């Protein structure tokens, strides 16, 4: 492979890249393990959001891929209020990516966003 083939991936090979579907499964798993069908309880929110973020990061780190990760988690109580989320990035489109998972139960909406950025 000559330089021109390698350059777009910043030195990574195609095998190093992340698979969206895999991340999606990991995030959903992390959410259902830590929150599940529990109703929105104010005193537990701190622990839940921590567990979700930590669960996602642990699973991502276990992949042993050359990426840095950022995970954000938004827990909102369902109260009929609107919420809009937007994100905007500047990175290498070929290697880096983002995945948002929306998950809800009867009382809350959870929005988890994962960014992975090549080292």
């Amino acid at each position, binding site marked *: 492979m000559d330089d021109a083939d390698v350059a777009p991936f910043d030195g990574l090979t195609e095998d190093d890249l992340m698979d969206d579907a895999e991340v999606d499964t990991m995030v959903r798993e992390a959410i259902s393990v830590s929150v599940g069908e529990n109703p929105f309880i104010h005193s537990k929110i*701190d622990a839940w959001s921590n567990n979700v*973020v930590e669960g996602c990061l642990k699973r991502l780190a276990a992949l042993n891929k050359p990426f840095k990760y*950022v995970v954000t988690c*938004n827990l909102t109580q369902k109260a009929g209020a*609107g919420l809009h989320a937007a994100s905007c990035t500047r990175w290498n489109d070929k290697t880096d990516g983002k995945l948002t998972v929306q998950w809800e139960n009867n009382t809350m909406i959870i929005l988890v966003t994962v960014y992975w*950025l090549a*080292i």
Partner: protein
Amino acid sequence: MVDASQYQLEPDYKNKFKASRAKEIIGNVLKARLTGAVYHADNTSSWAREISDDIKHHLKEEGWPRYKYCVQVFVGEQRGEGVRLACRGFWDPQTDSYAHDIFQNESLFCVACAFGVYLY
């Protein structure tokens, strides 16, 4: 022949992502965009996009080289609902950082986070 021990792996202090400056930028954008704004389901979505774009644009103008940015904006209606936002990064604390700022008025709240991740 280049001496490999002279390679630079980290940015100089002046080229580092500065969280305090980023927070200032975010705060200014939010204030400029949302002062006096009233929540409306139809246009808030595009506000969120515009705000995130604005913040990214201003971060780029700071000219911190080799940084990748992620900007995330949440705009929500103020109805007394509980909201909890958490974030965490798996990264190099020497080079990477994040900043956030919050804007609130009677009808809406807005949280914006900006992450700066260094590419070695």
